């Protein structure tokens, strides 16, 4: 049928079949802004459009329903290069992070303001409740309305002695994202690319006896089918970690034995996705069904089925794995003696905690697009670790690394799910073997089972003297890491590494064992084992303080580390290697705690009938990258007008890492950030960087940018001295891009003209690499007040206040955005998020209907983030990390507040209302 409609004021007439979704039609017409965050169920709102002025989901519209209508998308808002005022306000509010949901949010705001000039808070919440966002925590969206009213919303600025660092500047890629220009992998896919459908195992544990693809191959349009038969036999780990990875080599692109419901059985590449799917249905597979194991208890039985054997679980670092007993790894260690510590104590508490499988739900699922060009394999992808992916894919295919190029496009949320080579191994292999361009974009259902946070079972033992001095602290963690072992050692281990060093206790120990099961594959998730372990540690210490009848804060103050404390425990906490004891270079922890307690004391608890209030808080630490293992590099070049290009390998996930690098380089060179453009995360054109994980972006990548800029500065000075025929010591860089002596100065433009001219020295180019044996430790303290409805078990977070020591917040509004997002995610994890499985290991809630994530209406009424500015000698402009640490406090703070309100201890996530109610009833 023919339909005619207006799209952004342009008349469009197309021939279409009536069953086509409007979302797909718009995509074909070049509209990027309609994104698919769910499987076309109207749950995420990312595909919102204005249809005759009303906001609707374009995934729930069929072609005939727009006949004669008028459609507006974000593409229709800006005029040429001039942004719409709402787009401009989004940038000013600092609420653009990954940008995948931003266009939908912009439309929702526009639609609201078209209806009402001065919306109330409730109206704002209602207008934005239909658009999911996992990055921003929604909070700064309110600032958009303030800005549009003409009010200045200025975040506090830091580092008085700096001009750029510590000040609010726009994110370097925000314009592209608010306009919905080409940005994400899906925006770059050529129309002739083949689409991949992956046939997945319906069984949790089975061997493939035979696989027959002949029927599928006969279908017109099916171009390539990959099964275990024609797939590379290399064993590797998908874990995106530096080599040698502390994760077992237990995966193949397509295995002969499947180990969870959803494991890869075959992949079909065909002209359309629908065709690939139909072909996959024609593949005949003969399975030998094996007995599955779903729990640690089942996995550790003496006669338990073995999921991996030595051949299929190669442990490069030898970290105590015993696959024949389904043990992926085992480590233990500590300082002093727990036994001695317990003996000395007046009080002992030992409790067990558990946390379930949780999914990251980045709004953009895993996506990759690959093709061959000039004999090389090119992969465009949404990943956190492009350089690790290049290494892994070239290893799988037996290619030299220079035959593989990985380009990280904009990433629509990662949170650790995209730290691994989760799709590039498959997509790269198919492109290489078939020689054809191939594209794979996971559905939301696939995304739900591609990676998860592992289920941790944590027992904490803590003992203290009457005065609150802790004499013993031990953590025992068992991890259900699922079918394969990426991050099997490091996630539970990191939980111990980033909690024990908070305390000066002389007797501390950890004991970590990870088990294979036939559950879905776990891996990294923002916080990397710490949100769970810190929950267990904080709760145990809080309980200890209750039993000792001393305030929790007093117990903490008595035992906390401070600047200069020697962290002996770190020596015992290497991840499969020997660690390094470290003298604490800076610590703002006590300051964070004091600042927050002052605010929290102004909140009064009010009980109203069955609604009771309570307050709670918790502290946390994290790392800033992995010292001694990771590295980052940057290159900076001077262009012929005296501006610069900065090349970094760092993979910005929307957090503002590129902006951080840009600002640090600008500060060092004494110029405005505008004078530096950033190119990042392309393995062909930018230097090596470990990628974005372990909270390393600001510290590692930022430090590499600093070193490159410092070297550029030296080069500028030396070159200028040569030109002016003076000593380098007489030459200085002056603000605003000038260099010279007190008498004679050159502009950078003039310098570029001289150096790049026929008699010069060539383009000024400088590089910097960053490695370190120590990294600065960020600290935080979070405070909250909750209301518990003792009739329904519902818990509402009323107030939330977070104080962070992130060194210097290099971009305060982006730093705050990180914290808001992390808090909201953790509120979801604490109260309702949990992947559920049936008795055969099939995921039951792999969609947003049954796995809800926080929306704007879940925001506490009061939520603020503050910083204490801390100087750390490790690098100048030091930014300690902030992305992960912000996930570590909300859960214990909330659980403590619930205890304060009701007297119940909740030790198992999530605190769903019926769980709370049961605990209240059995009190």
């Amino acid at each position, binding site marked *: *049928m023919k339909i005619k409609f207006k799209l952004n004021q342009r008349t469009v007439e197309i021939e279409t*079949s*009536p*069953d086509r*979704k409007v979302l797909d039609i718009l995509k074909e017409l070049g509209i990027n802004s309609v994104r698919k965050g769910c*499987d*076309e*169920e*109207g*749950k995420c*709102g990312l595909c*919102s459009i204005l*249809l005759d002025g*009303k*906001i*609707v*989901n374009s*995934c*729930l*519209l*069929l072609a*005939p*329903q727009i006949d004669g209508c008028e459609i507006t998308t974000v593409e229709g808002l800006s005029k040429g290069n001039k942004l719409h005022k709402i787009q401009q306000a989004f940038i000013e509010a600092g609420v653009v992070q990954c940008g995948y949901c931003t266009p939908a949010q912009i439309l*929702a705001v526009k*639609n609201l303001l078209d209806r009402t000039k001065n919306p109330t808070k409730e109206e704002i919440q*209602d*207008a934005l*409740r*239909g*658009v999911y966002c996992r990055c921003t925590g929604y909070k700064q969206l309110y600032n958009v309305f303030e800005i549009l009213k003409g009010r200045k919303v200025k975040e506090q600025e830091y580092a008085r002695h700096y001009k750029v660092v510590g000040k609010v500047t726009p994110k370097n890629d925000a314009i592209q994202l608010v306009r919905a220009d080409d940005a994400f992998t899906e925006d770059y896919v050529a129309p002739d690319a083949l689409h991949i459908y992956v046939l997945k195992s319906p069984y949790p544990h089975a061997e493939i006896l035979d696989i027959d693809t002949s029927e599928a191959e006969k279908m017109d349009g099916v171009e390539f089918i990959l099964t275990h038969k024609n797939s590379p036999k290399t064993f590797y780990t998908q874990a995106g970690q530096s080599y040698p990875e502390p994760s077992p080599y237990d995966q193949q692109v397509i295995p002969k034995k499947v180990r969870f419901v959803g494991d890869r059985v075959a992949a079909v590449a065909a002209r359309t996705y*629908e065709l690939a799917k139909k072909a996959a249905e024609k593949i005949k597979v003969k399975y030998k069904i094996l007995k599955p194991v779903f729990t640690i208890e089942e996995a550790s039985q003496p006669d338990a089925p073995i999921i991996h054997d030595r051949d299929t679980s190669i442990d490069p670092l030898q970290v105590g794995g015993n696959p024949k007993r389904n043990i992926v790894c085992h480590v233990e260690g500590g300082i002093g003696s727990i036994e001695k510590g317990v003996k000395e104590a007046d009080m002992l508490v030992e409790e067990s905690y558990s946390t379930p499988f949780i999914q990251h739900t980045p709004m953009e699922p895993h996506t990759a697009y690959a093709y061959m060009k000039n004999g090389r394999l090119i992969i465009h992808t949404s990943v956190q670790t492009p350089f690790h992916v290049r290494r892994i894919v070239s290893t799988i295919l037996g290619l030299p690394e220079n035959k593989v190029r990985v380009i990280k496009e904009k990433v629509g949320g990662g949170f650790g799910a995209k730290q691994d080579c989760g799709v590039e191994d498959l997509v790269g292999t198919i492109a290489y073997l078939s020689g054809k361009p191939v594209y794979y974009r996971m559905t939301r259902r696939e995304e739900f089972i591609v990676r998860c946070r592992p289920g941790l079972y944590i027992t904490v033992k803590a003992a203290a003297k009457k005065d609150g001095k802790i004499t013993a602290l031990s953590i025992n963690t068992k991890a259900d890491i699922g079918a394969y072992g990426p991050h099997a050692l490091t996630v539970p281990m990191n939980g111990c590494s980033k909690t024990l060093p908070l305390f000066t206790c002389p007797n501390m120990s950890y004991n970590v064992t990870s088990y294979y099961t036939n559950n879905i594959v776990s891996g990294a998730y923002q916080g990397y084992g710490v949100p769970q372990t810190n929950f267990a540690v904080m709760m145990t210490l809080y309980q200890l303080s209750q039993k000792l009848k001393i305030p929790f804060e007093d117990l903490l103050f008595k035992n906390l580390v401070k600047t200069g404390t020697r962290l002996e425990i770190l020596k015992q906490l290497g991840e499969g290697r020997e660690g390094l004891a470290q003298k604490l270079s800076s610590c703002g922890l006590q300051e964070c705690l004091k600042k927050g307690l002052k605010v929290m004391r102004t909140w009064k608890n009010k009980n109203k009938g069955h609604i009771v209030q309570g307050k709670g808080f918790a502290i946390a630490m994290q790392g800033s990258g992995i010292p001694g293992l990771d590295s980052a590099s940057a290159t900076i070049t001077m262009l012929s007008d005296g501006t610069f290009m900065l090349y970094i390998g760092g993979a910005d996930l929307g957090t503002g890492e590129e902006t951080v690098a840009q600002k640090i380089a600008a500060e060092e060179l004494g110029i405005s950030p505008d004078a530096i453009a950033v190119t990042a995360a392309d393995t062909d054109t930018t230097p090596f960087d470990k990628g974005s994980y372990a909270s390393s972006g600001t510290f590692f990548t930022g430090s590499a940018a600093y070193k490159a800029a410092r070297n550029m500065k030296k080069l500028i000075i030396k070159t200028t001295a040569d030109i002016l025929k003076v000593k380098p010591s007489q030459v200085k860089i002056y603000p605003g891009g000038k260099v010279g002596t007190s008498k004679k100065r050159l502009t950078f433009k003039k310098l570029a003209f001289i150096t790049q001219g026929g008699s010069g020295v060539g383009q000024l180019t400088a590089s910097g690499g960053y490695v370190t044996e120590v990294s600065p430790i960020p600290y935080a303290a979070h405070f909250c007040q909750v209301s518990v409805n003792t*009739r*329904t*078990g*519902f818990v509402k977070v009323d107030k939330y206040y977070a104080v962070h020591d992130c060194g210097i917040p290099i971009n305060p509004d982006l730093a705050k955005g990180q914290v808001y997002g992390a808090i909201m995610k953790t509120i979801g994890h604490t109260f*309702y998020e949990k992947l*559920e499985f049936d008795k055969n290991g099939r995921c*039951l*809630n792999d969609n*947003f*209907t*049954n796995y*809800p*994530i*926080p*929306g*704007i*209406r*879940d925001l506490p009424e009061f939520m603020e983030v503050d910083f204490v500015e801390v100087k750390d000698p490790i690098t100048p402009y030091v930014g300690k990390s902030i992305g992960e640490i912000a996930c570590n406090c909300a859960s214990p703070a909330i659980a403590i507040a619930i205890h304060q309100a009701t007297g119940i201890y909740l030790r198992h996530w999530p605190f*769903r*209302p*019926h769980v709370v*109610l049961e605990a209240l009833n059995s009190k």
Partner: protein
Amino acid sequence: MEKFIKISKLADLKKIKNPVKFLAGGTDIYPLLKDGFLENEFFCDISGIKELKETKIKKDVLEIGALVTFSDVIENPVFKKYANALYESALVMGSPQIRNRATLGGNIANASPSGDSIPPLFVLKAKIKTNLRTVDIDRFFMGPKKTILKKNELITRIIIPKEQKESYFMKVGPRKALAISKVSVAMAFKMQKGVLKDVRVALGAVGPTVLRAKKTEDFLEGKHLSDRIIKKAGEIVSSEAMPIDDFRSLAVYRRKVAGSILEKILEGRLKWVR
């Protein structure tokens, strides 16, 4: 015969020969439809029938077109006046994106036990008018996703008597935004000198269909509202709920919460009396 037809007049219904599925706002049905669904089904798009988009205020009744959307229910003040429970259900029903498309007729025909508009329609004594007949809403649902609708029978209007009654709706879900309702309660009554008259209570998402809580209604009928009566009514409602256990929520919990919601509605009303 086209597999997808669009009609713009009710009269055109007669011209349809094959059994069809009707499409209105599409918010419930599209997520179920996978690509290429026209291979197996015939569809009839009714979203363009103008006469079904109107709400008419008659002498004794409100005549609501089946294509009236949840946004219309919020925006048209007549609903708040005569059908407050329905208005309240629209407010909490979903995002603006969904409310702008989802229709009352569609919500009824979809017959989900957790359909938000259904408990209010029960307590408002709604009648469902189709192209063939008019039925009391009490007799309309047969089970989850099952109604008495015959082949090609289309809901055209919803008739609500214009009574001088108060009505309320409340629900509880895991998350505030977009929650498929876990438990919902609608209630209507007349309040005469502190005494409840003509009480109706309906429960959503605690049984195979939305159900009337008749024991609760009988208990409350003629009672003076007091804290003690409210508590007792909550207990009775809990015993009447017939929830199934699923992973979204446990049955025991749903029962308990149904009671709490009813208590909350009545407590709010009691405060107002005092």
